[in-house]
Each structure stands twice: as structure tokens, then as C-alpha cells.
């Protein structure tokens, strides 16, 4: 073998290794997609099929129209409503994160403020605080200020996933902007607010999209706050809908899996549409959960 052939062979070996890794990493997702198209009989037949055995849309039809065969009494409403709820919560979380984080990150990178060190340290520590600690307290605090079972309450709670991360990522981005940019706007007579709105925000668009995507996914995928601060019926995001389909003794697999597949649609869409934003967000030292 020549050296060239040898390095070609090595390259293909790497491709093979990467393909094997991908198969293992993606198989679990593939398995529920297959499962979601199986009939109830197949799902309870005690056999796993590698490709859909008798493909059917029944599971999707059932969950989107509401109710499920085995756990009907515990499930309120259809997953169609739940999807809308989750969309609203995801968008709300993204909006809250941007409103709070964009100006804060700008202030923390471009203004000389005495509190900068304290706030940045607090943000780093805030990322560490476990959600169950916040959820336990927020349940009682929300009860007290009447935010239980409400969209604003849930979105405020879901912001805890997104906001510290968003500020830190945007701050790193703002550091890369030359100060002359803002100064020239100021010399032209723009106020601080106008400079921020008309100069800084347009330039930061890609970083802003990155944090918005992450905040949306955090709100969409949240389960712990939905379980705690939505104490009861009424608002029910899709994650809670899935949980309700998991019975204590028997699981309605058709409903669970079709709902789970619906719940991973936004992630799939983001992966396709916002790929480069996601990759940059992840390597910015993100914290999830």
C-alpha cells in the first residue's frame, strides 16, 4: 500500500467509527419514531420491530383528538391543545429571556458599572442552582402571589433555565464588538437607548437568535416547573401530557410515543433550520437543566 492509500483507508475507518457512534446515539430516537407508528396490538405483542410492523397513524389521531384508551380519566384535553400551550410557553420564555438578557449583557460588557463583577458571578452561580430547589419555593411563593396555574408564572419559572445562560453568551458576543461602533453613534447624537436599539441589536442578531432558540427549547421541554407550578388542570404543556399518559401500572405506549415524537419536532426543526446557531450556543459553554 502506498502512503496515500494508507491514509485513505484510515479516513474510511474513521468514517466507519463515526457511523457506528451515530447509530448508537440516534437509535433510541429512531426506536420511538418506529414505535409511534405501531398499532396497539403490535406494541403489546412483546416483540420489538426494527421497522414499523403494520404502520398506522392511529396513535397520532388518538392523542391529537384527545383522550386515550387506557388512561382517559387522568388526561385532560388533547395533545393538540397541549402543543399550543407548549408553543406559547416556549415563545414566552424566549421573549422574556431576550427582554431581560440583551440589555443586561450589553450593560455588563460595555458599561463600567460597579456591580458587574457581582452580577456576573451571581449568574455563574445561578446556573448551578438545581431547579427542584427553585420549584419547591416558587410553588409556595406563586401560591401566595396568585401565579400558580398561569402562563406568566410558568414562563417566569422557565426563564431560570434560559436567562443566566443567555446573558453570559450575549455578553461574550458584545465583548467582540468594537467600542468605536457605539461611540460613533453617540458622537452623531444618538441617545444610549437609540444606540442600543439601532446599532447594537441589529449587529447582535445572530447571537440573539442563538439565545432565543435555546430559551424556546428550554420552555418547550420544561417538565419540572410544569409539574409543580401548574398544580392541577387547565394549562397543560405537552411534557405534562406525556407524563399523564404514563400510567402507574400500565403505560399507553401508543399515546406516549406519538406524543413524545410530537414533542421532539421543534428540536428537529431547530436542528435543521438553526444548525449553526445551535452549534455556536453549545460551545459557548452552555448549561442545561
Amino acid at each position, binding site marked *: 500500500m502506498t502512503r496515500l492509500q494508507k491514509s485513505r483507508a484510515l479516513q474510511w475507518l474513521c468514517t466507519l467509527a463515526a457511523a457506528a*457512534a451515530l447509530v448508537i*446515539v440516534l437509535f433510541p430516537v429512531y426506536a420511538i419514531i418506529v414505535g409511534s407508528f405501531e398499532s396497539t396490538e403490535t406494541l403489546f405483542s412483546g416483540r420489538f420491530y426494527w421497522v414499523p410492523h403494520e404502520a398506522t397513524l392511529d396513535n397520532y389521531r388518538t392523542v391529537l383528538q384527545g383522550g386515550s384508551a387506557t388512561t382517559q380519566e387522568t388526561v385532560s384535553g388533547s395533545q393538540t391543545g397541549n402543543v399550543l400551550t407548549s408553543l406559547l410557553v416556549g415563545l414566552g420564555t424566549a421573549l422574556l429571556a431576550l427582554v*431581560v438578557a440583551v440589555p443586561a449583557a450589553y450593560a455588563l460588557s460595555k458599561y463600567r458599572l460597579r456591580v458587574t463583577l457581582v452580577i456576573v458571578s451571581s449568574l455563574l452561580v445561578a446556573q448551578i442552582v438545581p431547579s427542584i430547589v427553585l420549584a419547591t419555593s416558587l410553588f409556595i411563593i406563586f401560591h401566595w402571589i396568585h401565579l400558580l396555574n398561569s402562563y406568566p408564572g410558568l414562563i417566569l419559572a422557565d426563564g431560570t433555565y434560559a436567562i443566566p445562560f443567555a446573558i453570559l453568551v450575549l455578553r461574550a458576543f458584545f465583548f467582540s464588538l468594537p467600542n468605536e461602533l457605539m461611540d460613533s453613534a453617540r458622537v452623531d447624537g444618538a*441617545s444610549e437607548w437609540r444606540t442600543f436599539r439601532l446599532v447594537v441589536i441589529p449587529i447582535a442578531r445572530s447571537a440573539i437568535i442563538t439565545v432565543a432558540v435555546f430559551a424556546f427549547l428550554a420552555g418547550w421541554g420544561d417538565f419540572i416547573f410544569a409539574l409543580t407550578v401548574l398544580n392541577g388542570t387547565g394549562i397543560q404543556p405537552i411534557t405534562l401530557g406525556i407524563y399523564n399518559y404514563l400510567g402507574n401500572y400500565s403505560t399507553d405506549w401508543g399515546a406516549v410515543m406519538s406524543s413524545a415524537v410530537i414533542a421532539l419536532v421543534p428540536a428537529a426543526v431547530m436542528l435543521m433550520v438553526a444548525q449553526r446557531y445551535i452549534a455556536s450556543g453549545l460551545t459557548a459553554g452552555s448549561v442545561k437543566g
Partner: protein
Amino acid sequence: MGRRGNQAQADAAAPAPATAGAGAAFRSLTTGSLPRLSARRKQQFAGWLFLAPAIAYLLFAFALPVIYNVMLSFERTSPATIANFTAPFAGLDNYHAVFHDPTSRSAIVRTLEFTVLSLVFQFIIGFSLALLFSLRFPGRTFARSLIIVPWLLPLIVTGVIFRFLFQAEGGAVNQVLTNVGLVDHPIQWLNDPHLALWTILIGNIWLGIPFFTLLLYSALQDVPVEVKEAAVIDGASPWQRLRLIIVPIILPVIEVALLLGFVFTVKVFDLVIGLTGGGPANSTQLITTWSYNLSFQQFSFGQGAALNNVLLVLALICAPLYLWLSRGSLRTSRGEGR
């Protein structure tokens, strides 16, 4: 993280924002209402206004709940006291109850074991994949983009997926094991108290792989090519290059990855609820799930809060280390502050 740190340090060397110099001409938010303020003062004021929502949010959504959780852990709570915001002082009763409850104690020990085992495997797999992706081969960009998938799923969905895979009857795992002849009857993964934790461990390792892979991959990209080439010219073997050159250079990122991995894993909740619900017979209760059970199913918020504080201490042990490892971004802000 490494990139962010490096970038922040580079920025520290850049000229500080011009403040008073450019001041005379611009109209700030405060023009008119506070005419006598200097340009620098106006800028300070604008900065504070930009920061105000974030400060309010941090106080409301982090400081208040954490402080309230500490208060709660010293109170004698009951379902009736929830409406009152405070309850009678209970001293250390809740902590006493938590540390004498066998389920709480085993949940604490289990959380630590689970976390350490998760990190070991996540790191080994993630680092191997990062090294693989830093080689050149056909399809590497495609493979790298798909490796993110486990990260993006809602955690409850991940739990449900693994519950499906580990079913005794009709689960893919048992089917593969039976087909290759490793077992002759289905393993009761989710019904056997000795095995159920392994399913959570496997699920958690799976979902942590993208984080470790991408973080370490980006660190490997930052290793200067000249350094790697010099090592090759000096005749270092691949293993020597890895151990003596690459690992020391990316060590700060490895530390941050392990630290954040620790923090994610001690607070895992959704995955357990989706996979085992803490069962069978509480054999997969972690601190988070048992705390939820105490507070929201037994309505013993005081004990739940006490257990939460154990978790908080475990997580916050990492805080000083995290701050130290992130000192690059902190130093910049100190340089700016007055």
C-alpha cells in the same frame, strides 16, 4: 468555555470604552430631566437601567426562592400552612427527619454514586468522539451535527424513550440480548430494584455525550497546529502527544466540562420520572425525585426543603471552583469596574 475565556481576556487588552471624551455631544436617556449630570454619570445611569430587569429577575427567581427554601427547611409545615407563607419554627427537626429517613439517606448516597459513574463514562465516550471528530474523514461535519440530537430532546422524552427500550417484553435491549444469545429469558430491567438504576445511568450517559463531545471538540480545535506538528517532528507517539501535549493544553476545558457535568447530573429529575418514576420500591429515588415526593406528594414541604438544601450544598460546592475556572470572564469585568 475556553473560547469565551480566551476571547474575554483578549478584550481586556482592548481600549476601554471612551466615556467622558465623547460625552459632550450625545443626548442620553436622562437629558433634560437631569441636566447637570456629567456625560459619564448619564452613561452610568443608562447602564443601570439596562441592567435593572436582570437584577430584578435574579432577585425574584433565584435569590428569593433559595432564601425561602432555607427558611422553609426550618419550619413545621403542613398543607394548611402553605397559604400563610410562613409556618412555626421547627429548629432542626426537618434535617433530623431527613437524615434518619432510610429513603432520603439512600437517595443521597445513590445520587453521588450515579453522578460519579455518569461522569466517568460521559467523559470517556465524549473525549473519544471529540478526538475522532478532530481527525479529517469523509462525513465528519454531518456526523458532528447529528451528534447533538440527544441534547436537544426534552428530558422527559429521553426518559420515556429509555423506558420503551428497556421494557422486559417488547423492549429493544432485551430483544438484542436474546437474539445474540447473551440471555435466554427477558431481563426485568425496570422491575428489578438492583437493575433499574442502571437504566437511568445509561440514559443519562447517552444524553450527556453531546455536551462532552462538543465542548472537548471545540477545545481540541483551539490547540495550535504548530504545537501538534512540533510533537510529531520530535517523534512523539500518538499516545504521548495526547497525554503530554493535548491534555495539558485543554485541561481547563476538561475541568469545566466535568464540573458542569457534575452540576447537571446531581439535578437530574425529568429523566428519572420518565424512566422509572423513582421505583421500583424507591430503588431509583435520587435527591431531586425524593425531594419532589416529600414536598408535592407527602406535602411535607419542610422536609423537602431540607433535602433540597443538601442538594444545594452539593451543587454549590462547585461554585467557587467554577468561578475560579471562569476567572477569564470575571477578570475582564473587574478591569472595567471602578
